[in-house]
């Protein structure tokens, strides 16, 4: 109990208080402390990244071993990892090699596999968005109507063709489409985002305080 519960709580408390107070102390000794500990933590981040990557590999390996439905896809994940790793080691982790900057094997995998795959997965959203807009964007009430109008105006002011249409249809109005969009972004949108930001800021401070005082212990993991 002491080692498992109180020691980590004490560590979090000391670290939290010291580094909150450090901010107010301009003395070089305090800056040196921040620099040193911060450097350590960059190294620690590297170690914790291994933890994340390894647990992902572990879960796919377990699927391959159990051979349940879709285990083949987990094998694909595994082959992808091993293949890229092999290619990466062969290329010493660099995209280009030599004076001529020729593409290495890793560069080839990156350019022709990783970039198109990731790009395409996310570009699917353009299609989903179009269909979702069509099916759900209805001015059912005042709220939805406002949302819709703002979205409409921003989209119109966002593309050259929209500006062109605005000039042709509403050209007699003093503001141009891009100015309308700019005002929406800078005034009502900004105000709402700032309101949210203030709330989020208070929330972040409160959460940090709770970590320091040992009230919030989710970081300890199971049983904490």
């Amino acid at each position, binding site marked *: 109990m002491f080692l498992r519960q109180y020691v980590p709580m004490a560590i979090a408390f000391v670290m939290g208080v010291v580094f909150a107070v450090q901010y107010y102390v301009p003395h070089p000794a305090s800056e040196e402390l921040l620099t040193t500990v911060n450097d350590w933590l960059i190294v620690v981040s590297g170690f914790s990244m291994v933890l994340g990557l390894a647990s992902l590999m572990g879960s796919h390996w377990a699927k391959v071993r159990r051979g349940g439905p879709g285990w083949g896809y987990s094998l694909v994940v595994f082959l992808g990892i091993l293949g890229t790793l092999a290619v990466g080691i062969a290329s010493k982790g660099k*995209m280009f090699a030599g004076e001529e900057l020729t593409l290495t094997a890793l560069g080839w995998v990156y350019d022709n596999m990783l*970039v198109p795959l*990731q790009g395409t997965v996310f570009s699917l959203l353009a299609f989903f968005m179009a269909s979702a*807009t069509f099916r759900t964007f*209805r001015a059912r009430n005042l709220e939805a109507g406002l949302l819709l109008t703002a979205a*409409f105006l921003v989209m119109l002011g966002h593309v050259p063709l929209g*500006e062109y249409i605005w000039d042709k249809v509403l050209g007699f109005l003093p503001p141009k489409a891009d100015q309308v969009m700019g005002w929406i972004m800078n005034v009502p949108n900004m105000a709402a985002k700032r309101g949210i*930001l203030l709330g989020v800021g208070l929330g972040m401070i409160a959460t940090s305080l709770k970590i320091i005082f040992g009230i919030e212990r989710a970081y300890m993991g199971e049983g904490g």
Partner: protein
Amino acid sequence: MRKLAEKILSMDRRAIYLLMASAALLPFLTGPLGLPSRVSPEVKAVYDRIESLPEGSPFLISMDFDPASKPELYPMAEALVRHAFRKNLRVIGMNLWVTGSGMAEKILSDVAEEYGKKYGRDYVYLGWAPGATNVILGLGQDIYKTYPRDYYGNETSGMPVLEGVRTLKDIPFMVDLAAGDPGIETWVVYGKAKSMAGGCTAVIAPGMYAFLNSGQLVGLIGGMRGAAEYEALLKEMGKATVGMDIQSTTHVLILGLILLSNFAFFATRRRR
């Protein structure tokens, strides 16, 4: 009429996908539409800030994105690095998103080659390091401790490109190009940049206006449109400018769909 409206409302999703694909392919078939985008004050502010820097000033660009936002942020990064090289600034590149390393490296080396810039003297790529918040904090303390070596394994201390630069405070201007978290907010909170601007995907741009208004960001380049505006300012038409055509066609399609669905919706509702 009502039947038609109901039919429209229950249109198969794949029909919309097909419309969308056609709208996206249209500019490839017709050729460029040649419609210009007007330059917004947010983007102009970034351009002016770089213009105002004296020759030889260090300029930091952090490319915190991955291939998923390549079409938006890659042209933006290219345009900014191009502008910096044109002004003979010393470019310091880095990134905080591991899968973006390759792109950041490519942008810097491609544009450097174009302008005949020499590695180590005119520009440096510090590369990726884990622990984004700590990296940003560390740069505010001591760049050489955070990045003792650059991406290629060279020692950073003594590099001519970093002369006179010890911490972020010695860099008069930096731009963060971000696709999410860690990104602009992280730099705003933990960075000690003297003056900073942001470039980001269109998804996160609306949230950044609070920092723009408060002056924590001097300028903001939002999405492909922002990149196209920057290309227009540089008078160098790149991929973002080309991409604005498909933005035009697809946006107008979606606007049309919104109108259509709302007309149909009200047509079916009024009869009820």
